[in-house]
């Protein structure tokens, strides 16, 4: 069966890129030694190599896969629900809320921040994302889940509001501008095991929920009016889907900052493989997003070693031309929404 072959291919390609990403970094460790360390035969090899592999590269690569996967599934859910090919989960106010939360934490207590676990910045970003997304839902009013465009407008308006507050805080805290900027550009450089566990605990369940609701998204994406006839309660379903999308995306953003384009780009690329089923789209997009972000992070940390560039820059550099090519291809077919 084609679907089964695709799933196996997805798993194999992801495993291959993870291995590739673990093998390269700013510090050169010979491949044979990497295999020795990974298989537990590390006698006589430098302690720093073990530390680099087990405590830095492996958790960082796994975090990239989890973040990329959940951002892409969020893109599928929002594009399907809003019936808008330019939708992405960040439109719900998640990234601006997370950035505001992180900015407040950086400004309020630059020296009290603990680096353990999710950290104070990550926790503040997660709370900020959830609070702002909730505000977006409330601000959109009763009809939010009936008419998605009001939700989008509400999200955009509140994103601008958050950005204004961030700039205001930056104006009065110029010494922290640098840290705030780099947080918002997105990076996986601080992703250790505790963050991997935290990401797994939230993003895997939220992805499973979205995949299991794939048929509901199928129905909603054809229009809310027809949903009733097919036995789906559109507003309630939309609320559940968006809540899990927001939760998963907020977890990703809290760990890695607002990495752009994955949520927008991957669902479109995956649709090229054919098949309108949202259950399949969610699963395929998870693999697509995971593979893409692992590779983007590998590029971010190896193009100019030992320096790193924010991974959000890499995804944007890859994403913009991709979208343009896609738009040209789709124009021939007369529509953009797959």
């Amino acid at each position: 069966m084609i679907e089964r072959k695709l799933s196996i291919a997805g798993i194999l390609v992801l495993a291959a890129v993870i291995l590739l990403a673990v093998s390269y970094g700013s510090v050169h460790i010979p491949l044979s030694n990497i295999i020795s360390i990974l298989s537990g035969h590390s006698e006589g090899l430098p302690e720093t190599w073990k530390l680099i592999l087990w405590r830095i590269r492996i958790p960082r690569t796994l975090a990239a896969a989890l973040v990329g996967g959940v951002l892409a599934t969020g893109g599928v859910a929002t594009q399907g629900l809003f019936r808008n090919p330019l939708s992405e989960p960040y439109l719900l106010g998640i990234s601006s809320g997370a950035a505001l939360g992180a900015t407040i934490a950086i400004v309020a207590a630059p020296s009290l921040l603990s680096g353990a676990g999710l950290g104070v910045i990550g926790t503040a970003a997660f709370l900020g994302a959830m609070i702002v997304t909730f505000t977006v839902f409330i601000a959109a009013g009763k009809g939010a889940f009936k008419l998605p465009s009001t939700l989008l407008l509400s999200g955009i308006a509140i994103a601008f509001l958050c950005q204004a507050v961030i700039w205001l805080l930056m104006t009065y805290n110029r010494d922290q501008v640098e840290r705030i900027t780099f947080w918002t550009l997105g990076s996986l450089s601080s992703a250790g095991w505790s963050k991997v566990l935290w990401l797994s605990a939230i993003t895997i369940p939220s992805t499973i929920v979205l995949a299991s609701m794939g048929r509901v998204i199928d129905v909603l994406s054809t229009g809310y009016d027809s949903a009733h006839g097919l036995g789906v309660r559109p507003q309630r379903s939309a609320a559940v889907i968006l809540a899990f999308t927001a939760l998963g995306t907020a977890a990703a953003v809290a760990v890695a900052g607002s990495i752009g384009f994955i949520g927008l780009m991957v669902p479109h690329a995956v649709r090229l493989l054919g098949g309108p089923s949202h259950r399949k789209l969610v699963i395929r997009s998870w693999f697509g997003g995971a593979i893409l972000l692992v590779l983007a992070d590998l590029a971010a940390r190896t193009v100019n070693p030992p320096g790193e560039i924010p991974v959000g820059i890499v995804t944007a550099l890859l994403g913009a031309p991709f979208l343009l090519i896609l738009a040209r291809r789709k124009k021939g077919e007369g529509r953009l929404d797959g």
Partner: protein
Amino acid sequence: MFSFRKSFSFLLNIFLLIILVPVLPAFARGSDETFNQESSITLIDHFEREISLESAAMTVVSLSPGITETVFALGYGDRLLGRTDYCDYPPEAASVPSVGSLTEPDIEAIVALNPDIVIASTHFPKEALDRLVAAGENVAVLMGQEFFQGAYDGVIRPVSLILGDPDAGEALIASMVITVDKAFAAVAGFTRTPSVYYVVGFGEGGDWTAGGDTFISEMIKMAGGKNIAADISGWSFSLEALVDGDPDLILLPGWAESIFKTTPVYSDLRAVKEGHAIVIDENAIVRQGPRLAEGFADLVKAIGSVN
């Protein structure tokens, strides 16, 4: 989301400005000064502009933290009418009203203060100079090229001249020379060259340090250390490279001390475990002013502690 993208270049500019700031003194030029028989004062500033005052300046607006520190160290803090947001030392500077940031001083506020002279230094943009001159202000831009001699000849001597007290300038320089000479003598006695990592940023947002082409890296070298990031240019580094570099000494900004030592992986660095992660006051080593000598001495002491 959209607003983030729009703001990238703006934010990046601000960031680049901040991180490039410590490199600027390297491009600075010394100033010559002449002392007239009468009480009038003439000197040539960094931009080779001739500055003249009929008599010693009784009121001054400082547009640089280093200049503010110099004016206070010479004992004339009471002559300061204005300072920048960054002028945070000595603590008394806080009671002087601010006239804005280093790069965007509030021209109207400066004109309203009507000082005898406005003194600027590194990272003072030419546009701001032109606008101040057009507004009729007497502006001197003072900075120096070399590390210590630049502070003496480019900043402290001309500022003391402007304030009409060159003797105070010479006395301050003499005490700095003693401190610096002592520090160099200590370096000469070092038995080895410890490896050093200088933390600019870490954790969320990436790892940043002072690369080989920076003022700070030069300072570390002079102070008897070997910067593990000497091979890179600029500021971007990585945690992997830090672990691999395995420095003997880690220099931290004050805000980072507690977080750095408790963040996973960083807390496992040999220097942290051995208690060799030490806070250093960056402002004292990058500002051309009276604290440069003490800042250098502190750096030498920190490097000496792992010798």
